[in-house]
């Protein structure tokens, strides 16, 4: 099957998922992000002209403040013109279909779409539909993928741990409903992490998740033992209604990351979270704000990684 993200030269044309993303492209993006980080930190003027004259449309069919904002900042630092659309509350409620909306935006001469949608596969659908010169970045589709989040997580891990080939990484929480977890798993295994673990109750793990290349743990102490990186996932409140969990308190007791549980990980382990955090549900404040937490670095790195992704796409041949 043709990889829908790559053009015929093997270059990245859309970023839809980390699954099947060649390791050379992934490493290029991380390297490029590192150079943008230097730009952001070392210079008075933070802008570079790589996307000058290009229009980036942030099309969010699902609300998100932070992801949209970091994409917006990234595009502006690349000198692009940025348009933000929160469609969740306008067109679709008037009966317009997803592709109608996209067609209208194409007619406004968009060069790049950053799309978030509540349905798995929405970004693939849009990428199949748009003209060949237009680029699509998946900013989260249903439970399927959130590739820029995973890439910024990889960037963060590399920043603190230098290499991937000697790491144990644990992903904790609602893997079943998490696009972040899926994208992290593909990215970690592609970059050569030898041991990826998932820790959750059975109700929050998808069927045959081990076939994605992970070890399954149901116990936090066992799962966190000797890991180098802890990736926490957000727990949605609606899981309590769907009979997946009895209560937030019970979840916190079993799976909430506390200092006591974190003590089983390696002493230099780092703790990450894609945000927004539910303090006292999946993570204790003392851990979230503690010395091992790199959660705010993730946000900073997120801008550089998204700049790297956008400029990589814009640089691909047609």
């Amino acid at each position: 099957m043709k990889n829908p993200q790559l053009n015929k030269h093997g270059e990245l044309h859309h970023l839809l998922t980390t699954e099947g993303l060649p390791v050379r492209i992934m490493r290029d993006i991380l390297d490029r992000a590192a150079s943008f980080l230097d730009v952001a930190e070392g210079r008075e003027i933070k802008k570079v002209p790589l996307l000058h004259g290009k229009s980036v449309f942030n099309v969010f069919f699902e609300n998100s403040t932070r992801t949209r904002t970091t994409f917006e900042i990234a595009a502006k630092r690349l000198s692009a013109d940025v348009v933000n659309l929160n469609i969740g509350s306008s067109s679709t409620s008037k009966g317009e279909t997803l592709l109608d909306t996209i067609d209208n935006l194409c007619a406004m001469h968009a060069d790049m779409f950053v799309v978030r949608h509540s349905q798995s596969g929405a970004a693939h659908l849009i990428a199949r539909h748009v003209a060949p010169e237009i680029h699509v970045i998946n900013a989260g589709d249903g439970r399927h993928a959130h590739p820029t989040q995973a890439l910024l997580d990889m960037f963060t891990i590399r920043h603190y741990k230098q290499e991937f080939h000697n790491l144990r990484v644990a992903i904790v929480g609602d893997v079943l409903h998490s696009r972040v977890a899926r994208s992290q798993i593909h990215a970690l295994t592609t970059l050569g992490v030898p041991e990826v673990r998932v820790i959750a109750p059975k109700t929050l793990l998808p069927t045959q998740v081990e076939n994605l290349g992970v070890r399954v743990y149901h116990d936090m102490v066992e799962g966190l033992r000797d890991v180098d990186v802890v990736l926490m996932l957000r727990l949605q409140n609606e899981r309590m209604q769907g009979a997946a969990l009895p209560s937030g308190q019970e979840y916190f007791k079993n799976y909430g990351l506390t200092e006591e549980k974190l003590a089983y990980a390696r002493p230099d382990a780092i703790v990450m979270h894609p945000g927004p955090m539910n303090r006292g549900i999946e993570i204790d404040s003392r851990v979230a704000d503690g010395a091992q937490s790199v959660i705010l670095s993730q946000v900073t790195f997120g801008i550089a990684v998204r700049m790297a992704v956008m400029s990589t796409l814009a640089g691909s041949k047609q």
Partner: protein
Amino acid sequence: MNIHIKNGRLIDPRNQIDARCDIYIAGNLIAATGDAPAGFIAQEVIDAAGLIVSPGLIDLAARLREPGYEYMATLESEMQAAVAGGITSLACPPDTDPPLDEPGLVEMLKHRAKNLHQARLYPVAALTTSLKGLELTEMAELVDAGCVAFSQADAPLTDTRVLYRAMQYAATFGYSVWLRPQDSFLARDGVAHDGEVATRCGLPAIPVCAETIALSTMLTLARETGVKLHVCRLSSAAGVEMVREAKQQGVAVSCDVSMNHVHLSDRDIGFFDPNCRLTPPLRSLRDRAALRAGLLDGTIDAICSNHAPVDEDAKQLPFAQAESGATGLELLLPLLLKWAQQDNLSVSDALSRATVRPAQILGLDAGHLSVGAVADLCIFDPDEYWTVEPAALKSQGKNTPFTGMEVQGRVRFTLVDGKIVYRG
């Protein structure tokens, strides 16, 4: 009109004929095979050299979308598609709008179909009023109006007492009940088989136990009530095993599978191909292998097209929001032949699953070429290869997972009631 079909290879699974043999049609009946009857004068001679002459196909599940969903398909378009696919009889499920729950609707459909002079239509009426699963329909009235069985189509019937009563009542009069096994709670919001593909794609899943739990309920009640139960669209290996056991124990149960499930698995979803958004969901390769094995050993009696035309717009949506269904009438024959070829089966054995076996399930004396039988025939070229191109299909539904695939077998003539209703 008298028709002489000469030089063809006659395949009649019921009478175990597979030989080069002429066939003579007088009026609407098969007058003779082999030698012409005395004094037979043909008004039309069909030279079937190189072609196979088979009983017309009988499809147990074809949605024609009338009444109510004419924007998806109409009786005209789908009846043309049926005869272009060599299908001479088809059963349509009751999930129209309004559902087929009263005699007037069944009569209207039968009447409209009859006036089109194409395939024969056998409506399956609703088992419960409005398919709501609460009250029984007027079964005797519906049978008088021309329906052949009772079904919930894909609508849930969660109240097991209603199901029990419905089966008891149907059994009283010898009516058949057709049900697709799916527990509606376990299947809620699900759009794909609960396996590796759904996990990878992040699609809400339907576990196999949604099928086996419902199947267990209906087999238990069928045993209890003695009703003639037909299990529709089996999808899983575990389901096949349960039907196999039930048959061994003497339960009056028959069973069908959709051609899509004989050929595809959840892997074909690939990157969210909405053409693979089907009901029931495509399951694993292991399930597909078990469905094929079940077909071979007779656990599964028939293959149906599960024809469900949908409009193009309804498929241009993210996978889970896309309308379920695929066009199928014109692909049933080629996909039967493909199955025969892949599993080293004779053409006759393959054709039996879409002729004589479904006829038995419908309780019809049809699906064979005995002398004196009604002349419903399909004459096809088994060696013609063609590529499935949506625009070339007669069906108003253009979506199929087989788009672009090369298939084998092209219908040349379809005869219904002794009349040529399609020339390809």
